[in-house]
């Protein structure tokens, strides 16, 4: 395990809202090829930790390394370049753009989106655009959204939007994907599809995942390691079996459900 390179290495991450530390000096690692589950009661700080890892929020303290590169002060969009992308609890899409366009926008280094290249190197731009479209269609077919590519993203169901998010993550070429409650509010048959997809992307494409999920079944099936948070801190960490026997965890979280 330790031989594998660290994809995410966060230490002492802290975020305060007002006087309250929502994330309190949390250290978090994810190794290459892992699927790490992040669980905890509502308000434990899971999504805030995601926001810190993806730099949507600025941390008040702590450091963050993505693929070994210091990302503590980077802008959110730069993280995609370092190899980290995320989905949102409520799948947010650019509603008025088509499904295919949404995926295309996830491409890193899209030449045609730079004015200089679009004007001065039209042939190269057209060629790269063509390759991009090919790649975007592939990503859509992996998540079985290919038949919907021409629809505006607003026309997709909640579950399909989550699949679109995954397609975008694939298109970005990032090797770390943070999934924020990807199974929440999704029709049961689609949950199965999404879980299988995540497992397959991990196995066949070597993607590293960090997954926030309330569905314990999903966590137990997917995750090789589970991190439990409560009140802004990590209270336990280990395999699903280990943490499900941890007295602390049962008291603060699993016990609630039982």
């Amino acid at each position, binding site marked *: 395990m330790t031989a594998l390179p660290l994809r995410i290495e966060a230490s002492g991450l802290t975020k305060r809202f007002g006087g309250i530390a929502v994330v309190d000096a949390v250290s978090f690692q994810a190794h290459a090829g892992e699927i790490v589950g992040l669980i905890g009661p509502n308000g434990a700080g899971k999504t805030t930790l995601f926001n810190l890892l993806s730099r*949507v929020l600025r941390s008040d303290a702590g450091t963050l390394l993505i693929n070994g590169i210091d990302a503590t002060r980077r802008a959110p969009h730069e993280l995609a370049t370092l190899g980290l992308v995320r989905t949102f609890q409520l799948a947010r899409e650019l509603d008025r753009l088509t499904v295919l366009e949404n995926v295309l926008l996830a491409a890193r280094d899209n030449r045609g989106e730079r004015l200089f290249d679009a004007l001065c190197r039209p042939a190269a731009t057209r060629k790269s655009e063509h390759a991009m479209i090919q790649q975007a269609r592939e990503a859509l077919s992996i998540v079985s959204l290919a038949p919907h590519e021409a629809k505006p993203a607003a026309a997709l169901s909640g579950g399909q939007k989550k699949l679109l998010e995954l397609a*975008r993550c694939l298109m970005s070429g990032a090797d770390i994907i943070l999934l924020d409650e990807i199974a929440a509010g999704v029709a049961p048959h689609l949950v199965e599809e999404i879980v299988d997809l995540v497992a397959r992307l991990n196995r066949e494409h070597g993607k590293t995942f960090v997954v926030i999920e309330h569905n314990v079944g999903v966590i137990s099936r997917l995750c090789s390691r589970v991190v439990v948070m409560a009140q802004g801190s990590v209270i336990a960490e280990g395999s699903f079996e280990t943490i499900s026997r941890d007295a602390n965890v049962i008291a603060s979280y699993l016990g609630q459900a039982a």
Partner: protein
Amino acid sequence: MQVVVNALASAAIIAPAAVGFTLTFMLFRYANFAVGAFVMLGAFAAWTVNVTAGLPLWAGGIAALAIGAMTVALSDRLVFRPLQGRTGATLLLVSVALSFVLENVIRFFYGSQIKGFDLPLTGPLMIGDLRITREALAVVTISGIAILSTAALLTLTPIGRALRAVADNTSLADVRGLPVGSIQTVGMIIAGALFGLSGTLVGIDLAIDPGLSWAVTIPIIAAAIFGGLGSPLGAALGALAIGFAEELTVMFLAPAYKGAVGFMVIVVVLLLRPQGLLGVAVDRK
């Protein structure tokens, strides 16, 4: 029929600027009342090249595009970007102020006298009773080409896709890794070029003076509102509607009321269909 020709010609003049205005609104969600000043600046740029330097008007037109693009991009950097995040009302007031500044800068250098392009005299084309000046024909053609190419740019090219993405949801586009700042600058350059083009076209039809800015501001904004803010095609259609409304006013009421048409259209649209012709009703989040 003559009304149709005249309406088309006056629509063609304001249409590019209306598209530019709507593009600005799409990207930044504020109404830039300096549109008229940018158009006026474009007219003076074209006039300088055409009359002072004695070059043909097409060269003046190119200069107007360049000056328009530069001024708008600069004003975006120096004036609007630093105020980003303020309310639309603040930015609107700032744009009005900017408009006065630009108008008076021009007045300082060029004086307030009325100017006109140096155009070769040509007779109008007569089709039956219809009188079509060659200038009007050129104005309509050029304006049409400009609007169609802007539409093609927005829908067919990657840079257009990026612009629409930023317009749809700026913060989301940012998280998605788009270089939002430079995409917005590209949008402003395109809008500025469209203002410059309108400036050249307006100079063919009307006299050029620094007060021109306010004469064109209201029709441009009315056209954009009529078409639905955020819809470039709608802005072009809005320009047509304004053109017709103005011509009909001149015909059935009196030329003096022409200036009020824009205001009336704004009032009627906001009362009956606030999202405009092609606009999408916005749900405020």
